[in-house]
């Protein structure tokens, strides 16, 4: 490994990507379980939560597209 002095950069970049993916996956699962519980305990809130979920997704998606195009 001494033959590759900058190998740590490769590992660091992969680790950074992996930690972002893990965080996203974690929060997505939290939201998923929240929906499951909500559907059983307070089904009357589900329509509003579905709408919130879809609108939130579109906001993030369009924000992401605009941000990406601006890069």
């Amino acid at each position: 490994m001494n033959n590759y002095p900058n190998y740590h950069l490769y590992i660091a970049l992969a680790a950074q990507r992996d930690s972002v993916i893990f965080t996203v996956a974690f929060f997505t699962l939290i939201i998923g379980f929240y929906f499951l519980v909500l559907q059983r305990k307070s089904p009357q809130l589900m329509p509003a939560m579905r709408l919130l979920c879809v609108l939130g997704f579109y906001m993030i998606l369009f924000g992401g597209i605009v941000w990406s195009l601006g890069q």
Partner: protein
Amino acid sequence: MIRRLQKVPDWLWLILIASAVRLITLGAESLWYDESFTSHLSQLSFANMWRAILGDVHPPAWYIVSWVIGRVLGNSDFALRLPAALLSVSSVLLVRKIALAVKFDRRSAFVAGLLAAILPASVYYGQDARMYPMLCCFVLGATLAGIKQRWRWFTVCAVGASYTQNLGVLYIVVLGSVLLIMNMRHTKQALRIVSALSGVVIVWLPWFAGGMLHQLQQISQGFWIPPLTAGAALYPLSILTFGARLPGMLQVIFAGVAVGWTFTGLIACRRWILTRTGIIITAVTFGTPVLAAVISVLWRSIYLPRAFLPSSLLLCLFWAWPLAHLSRPNRRTLQAVAVPTLIVTIIFYYVPAYARVDIRAYADIIREGYKPGDVVFFPSVDGAILFTHYLPDLPYRLMPESNDLNQSLTDETKAAMQFSIGEFSDLEQQYRRVWIVVAINPLTSVREAAEVARIEKTYCYQLVWQSKQSISRVAIELVDLQCLI
């Protein structure tokens, strides 16, 4: 007209759609490193190709197919990728067939096939001159044979998978174990499975003893695959569905969609998962990556995301089911997220900025400026493999003891690949100018970086072209051997 279109069978639609998205742009992009490696091997004599394979990290099946294709259809980018495209289309049909075999209704089976046909990662590997669509065909074929209890077909497909990609063995271990456990009480059936698996082991053993063990010894000092982390374990879920041809921010968003869609699918399929066929599909889809993750933690990292492409195609079953079987409001919510995600990821797949690096254009820079008395010098193996595919007629030298991008090629493979190897200092006697392809990145060795720095300090050179990114630099330099600094 519409009535006629409605009469077109589902499977034909899938063939048309899958073929269209794969074949129309099949040869448009340059080959990347692994594909150029396939190309290089397909041009060797069979004996040298075999020697090269023994020092590589993959079994021989794909290289033999490419070798034959190279001789029949030539060595163009389109011809090299054609087997992968056709096998990828076959995989799409197998996904639909499996869906029908596990009692999906026709519409859900079509949606599963459609997802397998259009998901950007599936299209990417269908346009990649590598073995992954072939692995998909064999793994999906073995799964279908296991479900239908066709043990001869199971043996054929399992042997094919183990000779296509070394991680194919994990799929067969998981599939075989599940089939065996589920048929424990039925002695006759269990004996048939044992005999099928024994057949697989007997046919695979020669490769294991003569090839795979040799490969394991050869690459034991390499660092090809980085250590596994929790995030890396989840990475295939997004990279093998929506692909990597996206801006960083969108990759993060769609990673969330991939996890959420899978979670929804698992909840929606919970009853089906517990059926006999559901257990088989679930084990192959999720069990194999989990087994690879466990081995990576306990032994050494073998977690290569693209090897789990068969899992991602079977995941289409879990993604298709909720699109048709959730309650109407939940279904609409999922569709409202899934459809734009698919549209955006497919559009970005065809955006040139996210395509493979255009090696063809860089090679053209050298070709246009080339004069008799020039030579191309590669400080690294990956440069030589990438550029000699597009500059087969130009003289070149590869630096001795050079490395490849990810340390997966042994000295044995390099020798079998018959590179023209020579020191830069020896070029002065024969040539006047040298084109150097410089690629400095975190996987550049000390020797390679030192040689490039020495050349730049010793000789007059012109920077012909350069691309700099955060942690890498690729450049084409033209060195005048008769001008010393």
